[in-house]
Each structure stands twice: as C-alpha cells, then as structure tokens.
C-alpha cells in the first residue's frame, strides 16, 4: 500500500441489522481498509458477504431505523477530517455527490424513468456547484461527452429508456464524477452489462481515477474485474475480511482457502477440455458465527479442529508486508492462478457469470 496518508480510513466498520423477531444480523463485522488517491481498492466476495452494505454505510444511505453502525470512516479533505459514520444527516447530504460519489449496479433502475437524463445530471451541478440554466446544461453535455456518450446535446433531452445499457451506466458515471469527488464507490458497476461494454466501462473508470486522482472503492464478485482494475484487494466472507493484499501477491500466492476457492472456480483458458470447474462447496448461508470459529470452516477443504477454537485473527502472511489472512491453516503456494486471469479481465468475468 502507498505511503501517503489515506484519503479515507475505514476502521473496524460494523453494521448490524435488528432483525424483527429473528435476532440481529451482523452484515459487516469489523472491516478495515484504506482508500488512497489515484488507487483502486477492491472489496470482493459472494452475494451476502457484506460488500454492498459496507458501501451504503460509507455513503450514509442505510435505512435510518433498525441499523447500528460501528467503527469509524475518516475522510481527509484538505486539512479537515470527518468521520463519515458520525456526521449529521445534513452534512452527509452536503458531502454526497460532491466529495463522495457512488455508481450503482443496475443502471436502468438507478435512473429516474420519468426525468430526462439532462435534468438528472444538471440537478447535481445545481446542488453542489450552483450551476443553473444554460451553464449547467453545457457542463452536463461536457460531462456526458467526457464519459464517452456521443451526441450529448441530444442525449440530454432523452429519457433513460431511450438509452442503451452501456450508455445509461456512462450517464450514471457522469453524474458521479460531476463534482470531482475525492472518493468514488462503484458497486458492481458492470454486472448488468455485456462483456464488451464491461471492458469499456472499466477502462473509463480507470482513466477517471488516473486523471483526477480519485480514490475508487470497487465492489465486485468478479475476480476478472479485480485483476484488471484493483490495486489493493480485500476478500470478504460473512462480513469480515478474510484476506487482504495488493493485486500481485493475491493472485500469485493466495493464502486463504476461500480466496483459493474463488480463484479455482474461474474457468481456465489453458485447462484441458472437459475438465470440471471446482466450485466452493455449500452456500454462503452455511456459516458458523465468527465468535465460535472460522465462518468459512463448514465449506473449507483445509478445515481442522483448530478452526473452531474461537475467532481467527487477521495475521500477516509470509509473502509480504501488506498481505494478511484470517486463517489458521493457510494455503501455501496454491497452484490455482491462470496467468490469463491477470491479463484479460472482462472475458474471465463473463465466463464466471455463466458458470
């Protein structure tokens, strides 16, 4: 990880939902990571591992009732520091869209169907940059052009249903970058798109991060996307980080059996024909509470009785300073990585979707 002070430091973030009658649900259970200028940090995991809840907690978009959020998330802008989890709703409203922006998963449902695209872009310019009328419209057209939407003046007048899926996602990205936010969160931004468009969108995000020095938090279940885009990666399981590492060591030398399992379930281009994929056994619901032991143990091939001796701690891995895992029986020199994974993000991502 970089040496500079992080833009956003998330410490021991936890989100607990008060289940009605069914007891509470710990969706996020002590997750820590940092976001740095011009770098992409990935949160990876299956559905239900807490990655989307993490992003909503940081944005202050969790429902106001029935949720308890713990830990801290300190955002540094200039000389000021603010804990996002403790700001007043009004201050958060000022930060959202201007300093913090979010790109959502399903571009069609994330756009208001009855408001023209232009209005949906200019409203954020009016709110945070005070632009109105033709000035706002001109800026909106520039933004659409910048994210690769041709003929932006015409598109401004159109409605979401008149745009293609890729263009809708570009429009959402235009809204996200409209006020040059310091931190951007992308929650599965390519899941609803087809492969070629996925690659273009990832390319666009990468460019925006490089040009503006924005810190990007990339939330995905797609290891292809991770390999192609993320600098630092946190693998989440049942609300906790089970492995955290920069990209190279994670793919070259994964140590947590869950990470190894995820990589193993990606189809390899160089595998012999007809070789079955190796999925991870069971489902994300086959958990045990972290307090009793490793939550992944019921699905793990490396599981021993040691795994059930209380909660495993996040320990530094042998492979490097920034590489850590939460496992008592870490995997050594796992031979699961296809070099192709590192090189062709979108193709692998798509294959994984179909698998």
């Amino acid at each position, binding site marked *: 990880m970089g040496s500079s002070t992080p833009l956003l430091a998330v410490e021991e973030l936890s989100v607990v939902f008060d289940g009605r009658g069914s007891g509470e649900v710990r969706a996020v259970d002590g997750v820590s990571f940092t976001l740095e200028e011009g770098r992409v940090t990935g949160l990876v995991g299956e559905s239900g591992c807490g990655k989307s809840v993490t992003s909503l907690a940081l*944005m202050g*978009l969790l429902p106001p009732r029935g949720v308890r959020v713990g830990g801290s998330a300190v955002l540094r802008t200039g000389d000021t520091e603010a804990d996002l989890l403790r700001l007043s709703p009004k201050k*958060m*409203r*000022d*930060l*959202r*869209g*201007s300093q913090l*922006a*979010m790109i*959502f998963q*399903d571009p069609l*449902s*994330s*756009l*208001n*169907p*009855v*408001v*023209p695209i232009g*209005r949906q872009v200019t*409203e*954020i310019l009016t*709110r*945070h940059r005070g632009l109105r009328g033709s000035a706002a419209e001109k800026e909106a057209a520039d933004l659409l052009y910048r994210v690769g939407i041709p003929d932006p003046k015409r598109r401004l007048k159109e*409605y979401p*249903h*008149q745009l293609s899926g890729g263009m809708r996602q570009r429009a*959402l990205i235009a*809204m996200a970058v409209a006020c040059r936010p310091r931190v951007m969160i992308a929650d599965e931004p390519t899941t609803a798109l087809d492969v070629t468009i996925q690659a273009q969108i990832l390319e666009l995000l990468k460019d925006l991060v490089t040009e503006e020095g924005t810190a990007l938090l990339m939330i995905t279940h797609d290891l292809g996307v991770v390999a192609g885009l993320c600098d630092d990666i946190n693998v989440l399981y049942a609300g906790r980080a089970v492995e955290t590492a920069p990209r190279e060591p994670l793919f070259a030398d994964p140590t947590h059996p869950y990470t190894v399992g995820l990589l193993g379930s990606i189809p390899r281009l160089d595998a012999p024909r007809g070789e079955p994929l190796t999925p991870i056994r069971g489902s994300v619901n086959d958990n045990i509470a972290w307090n009793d032991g490793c939550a992944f143990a019921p699905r793990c091939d490396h599981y021993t009785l040691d795994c059930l001796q209380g909660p495993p701690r996040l320990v530094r891995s042998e492979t490097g300073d920034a590489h850590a895992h939460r496992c008592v029986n870490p995997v050594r020199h796992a031979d699961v990585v296809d070099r192709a994974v590192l090189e062709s993000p979108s193709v692998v991502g798509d294959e994984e979707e179909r698998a």
Partner: protein
Amino acid sequence: MLRFIVRRTLQLIPTLGGLSILLFIWLQRLPGGPEYALLPDDATEEQRAQLRRSLGLEEPLTVQYVRFLRNILQGDLGTSLQTGRPVVEEFFTRFPATFELALTAILIAVTVGIPLGYLAARRRGGVLDFAAVGGSLIGICTPVFFLAFLLKVVFAERLGVFPSAFRLSPGLNRTDLSGFVVLDGLRTGELDVVWDALMHLALPGLALASIPLAVIVRMTRASVLEVLDEDYVRTANAKGLQRRTVRGRHVLRNAMLPVVTAIGLLTGSLFAGAVLTESVFAFPGVGSFVYAATQTRDYPVLTGFILLIATMYVLINLLVDISYSLLDPRVRAQ
C-alpha cells in the same frame, strides 16, 4: 404528443360503438315493451300490436339499431315518460348540478387524499399512518347513503352548520348563465351565490368523496412506499440532493402514476354514485332524476343516463391517458 392524443381519441369510436350495441340489446331484452307502458291496461292485443308496428318495433333488429344509433347521434334520446319533455333537455338542465357535485367530491378526495397518503407513507407505522389506513378502511366500508344520512342528521339537522337540502337557498336571486351555479356566480361577481352554493355542496360533496378519498389515500400510501424503495431514489440521495428535490422530483412524480389512473376511474364512478347522494340531499341533479326514473320505469331516461355516464367515463379515461403520457415518457414511446 399530438399524434398520441389524436390516435387515442380515434380509439374512442369503437368503444362507444360497442357500448351502443350493448345498450341496444339491453333495451330489446327489457320486459314489458312500450305497448304496455303507453296503452291502458284494458287495451286489446290488436291495439298493442298496432302500436308496436307504428313504433317500428316489428322491423328487423338491424334496421332498428341503425335508427337507434341515428337518433343518438342527432341528439334525440326520446321523451321522458315522467315529464313528457325530451330526455336530452332534462339532462341539460340537471347535469351542471351533478357535475359540480362530482367535481367537489373529487377535489376533496384529491386535495386531502394525496397529502394524507404521502404523509402516512413517510411516517409508516406512526400514529398518522395508523389513523389514515384505519380511517380509509372505514371510508371504503361505509355505504355512501348511510354516510350521507349521518352527515345530514348531524351537521344539517342537529348542529345546523350546513343546509340539509337543495342546491341553493330558496329565494336567492342569481343570474343564470350556464347552469353551473358556482361558475356563474364567479363570473357575475355574485359572491353570496357562490358561498351559498358551496355550503350546499359541502355535505353531499363530502359524502360522495368518502370512497374516492379512502381509495386515493391507500393508493398514494402504497405507491409512495414502493417508490421510496426504488433504486433511483437511492441514486438521488447518493447525489446529495436536497430532501425536497428528492421528494418532489423523484418520489412524488413517480408515485403519482398509478394514482392518476385511479383518480380517473373514481371520477367516472362518481357520476353514477351521485344517484344516492343526490336523493338524500334532494340535490336537483341527474342522480335524483334518474332515481325517480328507476321507480317509474322511465326507460328513455335510463338509456340516456347510461349513455351519459359511459361517455363521461370514456372522456375521463382519455384525459387520464393524456395526463399519464405527460407524466411518463415511456407511455408516449409506444
């Protein structure tokens, strides 16, 4: 947009055509034809048969249907058996009263129902929500004639706050321009007439509004709750927009789509529903006239009433479709 309106208007023709056929069949199937209604009880079978022939009732149905349709199109709905005056004329003198009543009712229902439903959704599970949902359940379950009597007894007869009957106080001088009392009063500046008319509209309007009000409260509440969970509302919040922008532009506008449709259907039903309310308050509208017509088997009046109600329904639905397409661009595209 214009093309949409034209196309939608042309679609009315087959709808109304189908309606005229149904109406014609209904008239054919009625027991006891005019030969029984028009001739004295001791008339001979020969006299009855002759009357049928002279009225053209022995001709083929197709011929009769064409004549029926031609008469309607020429604005001839026959003569009321009660009053002996043309049905169209009877309706013309009474329709403005019913129109004002229905409009009052729908205005009450919309101006109270939408804000109440919206607030109930925003404070889901709170006291207001509980009261709105419970109250609207009572509103839906209470028969209109019962509520009308209740209002009349309590507010008109016991408390004396509102007049208990008629459209205007007896002996009030007014200039009649169109038959629309409130409108005329506003145009001529006779504000005492406007006030008097509004006082007379209050109780029947409230009684008639009860069901649409209840439906609008519930629909608005359900619709707002649904929209609040939509991804685009989350996006709007993620952009840091002010609360009022999120609520107005992103929540309300989308939540109103199903409510607009409901308002249209409810308005149509008000013209039919006014029959009972008008009877209770002796309101001189179409409703009380039709109520009397059902008692005396005044078929020309009933036919005209069905035609009038159906036409209102169809026109209101046209308005709903047009306003819907203004609200939702996806409808225009199709």
